[in-house]
């Protein structure tokens, strides 16, 4: 029963990360290249969603539409609320990576005749996203745990299922919570291993060697 519930956490995790990734990338790009108006908008967006506690946002997204007679599924509300929170954090991971890329890369792309958008998509992001993986794995571990927050809107995830076991068999309470803890240990370990593998796979040959590195010949 708990393992089945864990799948729901994983499902929520993947969808909220996807939302956070797409929105976070857009926010980061706008902060760096968006010019004044879009840049300010992106900063406001990031400020808002990094400030509101995820639990509060979750309540707002889940119960808010109800006031207007709209209903939103538990899964969707959790995806949106937690995804937007995560996008704020992810945007800063991506922004840092984008800004660490030498301005010469953009200049060379523009000199070839690429538009700014094309240069961002073909030259800047492929490099920035690679650099983002270590920071992103931190965010991954964080939001992994946040998936249990969906408990409060009645999403049948892991913690809620453990709680249900406790209600029925009080003796098994500690055992079920411990099981939840262990499942999270395993999930986080697996996820971080996968990201480590991805980092290794996408490493640019000759670059990004751990620690001190000698660059080129010049």
């Amino acid at each position, binding site marked *: 029963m708990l393992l089945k519930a864990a799948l729901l956490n994983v499902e929520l995790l993947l969808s909220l990360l996807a939302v956070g990734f797409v929105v976070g990338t857009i926010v980061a790009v706008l902060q760096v290249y968006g010019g004044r108006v879009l840049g300010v908008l992106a900063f406001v967006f990031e400020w808002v969603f990094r400030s509101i506690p995820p639990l509060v946002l979750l309540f707002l997204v889940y119960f808010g539409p109800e006031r207007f007679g709209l209903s939103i599924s538990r899964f969707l509300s959790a995806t949106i609320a937690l995804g937007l929170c995560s996008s704020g954090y992810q945007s800063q991971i991506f922004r840092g990576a984008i800004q660490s890329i*030498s301005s*010469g*890369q953009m*200049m*060379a*792309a*523009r*000199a*070839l*005749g*690429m*538009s700014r958008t*094309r240069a961002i998509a*073909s*030259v800047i992001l*492929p*490099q920035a996203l*690679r650099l983002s993986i270590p920071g992103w794995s931190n965010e991954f571990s964080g939001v992994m745990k946040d998936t249990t927050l969906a408990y409060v809107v009645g999403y049948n995830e892991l913690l809620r299922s453990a709680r249900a076991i406790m209600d029925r068999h009080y003796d098994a309470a500690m055992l079920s919570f411990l099981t939840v803890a262990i499942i999270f240990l395993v999930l986080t370990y697996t996820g971080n291993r996968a990201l480590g593998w991805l980092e290794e796979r996408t490493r*640019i*040959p*000759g*670059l990004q060697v751990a620690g001190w590195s000698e*660059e*080129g*010949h*010049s």
Partner: protein
Amino acid sequence: MNMPLLKVEDIHKRYGNEEVLRGVSFEVNRGETKVFIGPSGTGKSTLLRCVNQLTPPDKGQVFLEGTEVTHHKSDINRLRASIGFVFQDFNLFAHLTAMQNVSIGPTKVTRMHKEQAQARALAELERVGLGDKANAYPAQLSGGQQQRVSIARALAMDPKLILFDEPTSALDPELIGEVLEVMIELAREGMTMLCVTHEMGFARSVANEIIFMEHGVIVEQGPPQQMFTNPKHQRTGEFLRKISELYGETER
């Protein structure tokens, strides 16, 4: 037809309080090689960047085959695609192999078919003597090799002219020769080139004209022979003697 390939008129550029370019004009005909020299900080690199609008000038006009590059309605991406640019520090795309660095222009900018672009890229890499390095990443190449890849990257776009911004200044002395060889070859094949460089051996062997700049203006311009032996301005002679001492003056 007598229209120059490139016409630059009265370019001004100011950074804060400093006017880096104070009215520079020149023309380049098809197939010519012009070399810009002058003390550092005299706006030579800025001038090159004004030509393809990487640095938009404050005032003045640039025409490529009669089309005004500086016009606010010009399709700058399209114009840039036909103007090659070789940077001092190469600026190869770090995440791409040598081959991909050269083929990305044709595929993403001129929408050439992928296989065709790769064949073209390989041909250009072979032209600069790096056919065997097609799958190497920039960080795996020496500075001289990186600069040759960046020349191949420019060539793959079939440019009408190539701008070289101190292409050998970031290189170890023993790597300079391989880059100059490629440039000399290009000049002899009839490529139109504008080079900011202090390699006087290069200037002597292929330049049609040397342009001496100081304090944001052109002080003097003329064929290398005349500039070296009979400069009109004392400053030109002094400067040429100084860099000839510094850089040696081997004919290449």
